[in-house]
C-alpha cells in the first residue's frame, strides 16, 4: 500500500480526507475530514513516534536502538513535538 499523502502535490497545503471505504463490504463515506495530527507528520517522523512508543517512551532505549546519542534522540523528539504543535488547529481543538 502506498504511503498516505499528507500534502497537496500542487500547492503544498495539508490534505484532508474526502472519501473513505470499507475494504470488507465496499461501503463508502464521503465528506471532508481532517487528518489526525500524527498522520500529518512526515513518514519518518511517524516511524520515530511509533518506535518511541514501542520503546515505552524511553529516550535511552531509543538511542540504543538507533545507535545515536541521547541528545540526538531528544532533539529529534523536540522537533517532532514542535511539528505536532504547528499541526494542531489554531482554536486549540486537537483531533489526534
Amino acid at each position: 500500500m502506498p504511503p498516505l499523502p499528507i500534502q497537496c502535490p500542487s500547492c503544498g497545503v495539508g490534505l484532508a480526507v474526502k472519501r473513505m471505504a470499507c475494504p470488507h463490504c465496499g461501503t463508502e463515506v464521503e465528506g471532508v475530514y481532517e487528518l489526525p495530527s500524527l498522520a500529518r507528520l512526515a513518514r519518518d517522523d511517524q516511524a520515530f513516534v511509533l518506535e518511541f512508543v514501542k520503546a515505552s517512551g524511553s529516550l535511552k532505549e531509543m538511542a540504543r536502538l538507533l545507535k545515536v546519542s541521547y541528545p540526538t534522540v531528544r532533539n529529534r523528539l523536540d522537533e517532532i513535538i514542535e511539528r505536532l504543535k504547528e499541526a494542531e488547529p489554531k482554536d486549540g481543538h486537537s483531533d489526534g
Partner: protein
Amino acid sequence: MGTQMVDAMRGDAPRYRAPGLRDWLFTPFTYIAGAPALAIGLAAILLAGLAGSFSYTHFDGVLDMHTGLVAALWVFPAEGIIAWLSLAVILYFLGRIVSKSAFRAMDLFGTQAMSRWPMLIPATAALAPAYQRFARALPQRLIAPGGASALPLMDALIFGAVVLVTIAAVVWMVALMYRSYCVCCNLKGGRAVGTFIGGLLAAEVIAKVALWLAVVR
C-alpha cells in the same frame, strides 16, 4: 539536527546513517555523549597533560597552548581539567537560560571534555626535539638578536609546522565545542553562535583566574 543525518530512513523503523570517519571527526556527538564521551574526554585531557609534562607544554586556558615553563607533573593535567570545566560550566548555565529543551548536564560536560581531544595532537607534536630546541632558543634570540648562535633552518621549519598543527587543532577543538553545545542544548542559528562566543570569552577569563588561583599563586 540536519536532515542528512536521517536521510537513510527506510521502511517503518527510523534509521540513522552509520557514522563514517568524517562524522566521528567533526560531528561525533550525534553518536556519542554522556558517560562514554566523558570517559574519552578525561582520558584525552590526562594524556595531553602527561605528554605536555614531557615537553613543558601547558594548556593554560580554554584555547591556550604555551611551551617552556617548567612545572610539577600535576600542573599539566590540572590545567586541562580547569580549562574544560571553565567552559562546560559557563555553557551549562547559558544553555539553561537560552535553550527551550531540557538537557542533561552529563551530556554537555562529557562532550565538552571529548571536544578537547584534538589537543593530544599538538601535545604529542611538541615532543619533537627540533621543536623543543627552537622553543628554548627563540626567547634568547629575541632578547639578544646578535648574541645567540644561528638557529637551524630545519628546527625552524619543524617549529613552524607544529605551530600550524596547533592552530588547526585549536580550530578543530572549538568546532567540536560548538557542536557539543548545539547538540546537547538543542540550539542552532544566531542564538547558539552568540551565546557560544560570549561563553567562550567568559570561560577564557574564568580559566585564567582559576589557573592563577590554583597553580600560580
